[in-house]
């Protein structure tokens, strides 16, 4: 079920009413409802893969308790952790990476001259959201192993934690210390929290429908037919894709966080206006925060993080970005994308500027950003957008060919979309969107902070109008579902 579908429009209020009508009973009833709703929500894609979520829940519930019960026996505890790691990464490896490894191995063998090597691959469908929920359950076992968390004895609460529908298929990836603790405890009907949730849903839908989906056909056309376009169009394609992927994924996260608020549950922020980052390090503190936090906690810090020598730290950074790239998809394009980000990040790290902007945002001192900040933001945006050529291209060959054309076909051309889209509409839209995001840049969870009720209603109306003006009946899915 998509957040931007009619199904969800009916599904969400129905579950909301049922959920709060159970509020005077024990919390277990609400948790059972969450499980039913979440499995129904997921079942709209493919009912067959529900068993994977269930298996992941049962295995990590059991393993978590085993790790904890062997807390004084380090070896046993570690062995149980390995069970969780192998199971979860095994699921990912089988469903997401199996064919990639087979094809890569065959390519390598053929490269070494073994031309006639026969091989087989499996026709495996990638279950939606597998990268997200496996990482979430894995974090549970890891937290118990690192003694940051006590395992729950409540299987229903744990199953609800793993399958909680607002964040099941594309995050934010939650740690049990935040989400499970809320699910295990009683939730109170909080009017402010719920209205904040509704506002976030509206803002997320705006980003998805108006920004991401409206731009998508243009991006699709440019990336599919890049060999017919010159540099100006290709650069426009990259910039538009940056807005598309941001609108799509941050829109999804906002709807997820907003929907979750309706049930009295707070999820962590996943985006904090990443396009206003002043360097790549700041960008990674603002983009897909739940994933970068996951990698920092469970990979970077255990490897020594930045507390080791500079050389080892650089090694750790490279590993983190390569793994992050690989997490996104079983394709060399994502690995290359990760490598590029490592390349952008390392100089910032070596200059000691990687934590420089962690507690402040652009335009702190006044209404407008300084000239230096504008240059920094534009430079960072250019780097990040450049890397997205690899993120968006279907193959590494296409990505290099796209890049090659930018440098070899350096002439201006007017762009005409085959469907005749009026491009000025999109330029105005993106400009207004960027200005609005700048205005609200200090609080990603409250996009409509207007004191005047009239202004507030007018802004809501404009959001809805924009959704109508850019409505497209193709019902696009979310980009990050493929990961």
């Amino acid at each position, binding site marked *: 079920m998509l957040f931007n579908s*009619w*199904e969800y429009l009916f599904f969400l209020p129905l579950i909301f009413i049922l959920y*709060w009508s159970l509020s005077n009973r024990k919390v277990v009833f609400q948790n059972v409802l969450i499980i039913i709703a979440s499995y129904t929500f997921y079942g709209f894609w493919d009912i067959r893969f529900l068993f994977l979520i269930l298996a992941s829940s049962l295995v990590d519930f059991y393993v978590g308790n085993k790790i904890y019960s062997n807390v004084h026996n380090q070896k046993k505890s570690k062995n149980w952790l390995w069970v969780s790691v192998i199971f979860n990464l095994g699921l990912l490896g089988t469903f997401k990476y199996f064919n990639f490894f087979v094809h890569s191995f065959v390519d390598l063998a053929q490269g070494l001259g073994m031309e006639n090597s026969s091989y087989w691959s499996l026709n495996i469908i990638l279950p939606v959201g597998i990268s997200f929920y496996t990482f979430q359950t894995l974090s549970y076992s890891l937290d118990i192993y690192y003694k940051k968390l006590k395992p729950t004895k409540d299987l229903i609460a744990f199953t609800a934690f793993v399958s909680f529908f607002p964040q099941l298929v594309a995050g934010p990836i939650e740690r049990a210390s935040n989400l499970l603790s809320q699910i295990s405890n009683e939730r109170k*009907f909080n*009017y402010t929290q*719920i*209205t904040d949730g*509704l506002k976030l849903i509206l803002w997320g839908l705006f980003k998805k429908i108006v920004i991401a989906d409206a731009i998508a056909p243009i991006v699709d056309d440019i990336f599919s037919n890049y060999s017919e376009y010159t540099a100006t169009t290709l650069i426009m394609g990259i910039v538009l894709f940056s807005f598309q992927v941001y609108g799509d994924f941050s829109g999804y996260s906002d709807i997820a966080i907003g929907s979750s608020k309706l049930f009295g549950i707070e999820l962590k922020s996943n985006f904090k206006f990443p396009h206003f980052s002043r360097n790549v390090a700041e960008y990674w503190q603002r983009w897909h925060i739940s994933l970068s936090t996951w990698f920092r906690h469970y990979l970077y810090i255990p490897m020594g993080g930045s507390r080791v020598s500079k050389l080892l730290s650089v090694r750790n950074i490279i590993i983190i970005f390569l793994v992050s790239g690989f997490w996104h998809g079983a394709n060399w394009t994502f690995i290359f994308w990760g490598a590029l980000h490592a390349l952008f990040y390392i100089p910032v790290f070596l200059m000691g500027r990687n934590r420089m902007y962690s507690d402040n945002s652009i335009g702190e001192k006044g209404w407008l950003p300084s000239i230096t900040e504008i240059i920094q933001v534009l430079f960072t945006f250019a780097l990040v957008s450049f890397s997205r050529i690899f993120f968006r291209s279907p193959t590494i060959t296409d990505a290099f060919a796209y890049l090659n054309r930018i440098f070899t076909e350096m002439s201006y051309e007017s762009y005409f979309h085959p*469907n*005749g889209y*009026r491009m000025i*509409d999109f330029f105005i839209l993106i400009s207004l969107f960027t200005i609005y995001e700048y205005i609200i840049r200090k609080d990603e969870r409250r996009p409509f902070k207007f004191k005047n009720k009239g202004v507030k*209603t*007018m802004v*809501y*109306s404009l959001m*809805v*109008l924009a959704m*109508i*003006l*850019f*409505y497209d*009946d193709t019902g696009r899915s979310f980009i990050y579902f493929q990961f």
Partner: protein
Amino acid sequence: MKKLLYQIAIHGLFIFIILECMVRVFHFHANPPQQYIDEYGVRKLVPLQEGYNVTGNRRQHVTPYKVNSIGFNSIQTDFPKEGNYNVALIGDSYIEGLHQPNHNSIGVMLASKLDSLKVYEYGISGYDMADQLHFVQAYNKELQHIDEIILYMKFENDFERSAYEPLLISESKLDKIRNHSKLLTYLRQLGILNSLKSFLTTNTKKLLFKNEIQEENSIAVDDPKFSLQRISNFKKLMKTYNFQKNKMTLLLDSRFTNTMFLDFCKENNIKIIDFKQPFQSAEKETSLVYDAHWNSYGRELIAETIFKHLTSKNK
């Protein structure tokens, strides 16, 4: 909970009112001309209406229209008179031409090719062959000075009936109420309301009549029996309305016309004007961007094709 529902209702109402005002002020909606059934039982536009045809979410294509005193969107205000070579162009929305300024219609383009040529356009959205032939018969007296009648047809749409019955698209009371709101009209025109409606009806049907839906889906749309049925309907219409083979010509695109029908026309000496060739070798797009109808270039090609047919016929 009560407070929440109250606030949602209040905000919803205010948002609706603001959007209604915006849609009206910026005229995002189209106001298609109203139709009626005249004293001959012919479906026409209410005479002397004026308005704007708008397509695209963001007013990407806006055209004014003006219905003449006879009830068609055309610059010709009278029925044909003696002294010229008069051509009647009859058809559906492609001939009605709400998507184009009526001074730039196929008829005007065709008439501009020869001084003695007068073209009269009688197009109404949704006109099928029964509508067209009934119109010609009902207005037989008024059309007595017409030398050539060109009937625009699409095989898959225009032969579903074997007899004419005056039909106006009926609107329920709910539709009529909805039409008072320009916002809802706009949403309907964009397909948003229909999408919601079909979501609701499909799911209700799925729940209630699962087997019947499967049966409906199992019917093959390209079954030859449908083509034969359409040809049979045409035969009946020809007989009922005394199809004048010497005067009447079918305007069609043979790429989208069943070959059995084309063979039938050939065997029965029914003249056709086929615009397949010019459209296939067209240098530019022949349809509008936000509208499936012919653009200026497409209309010019049609006019050119008809003109070639007329000149070859009257050599």
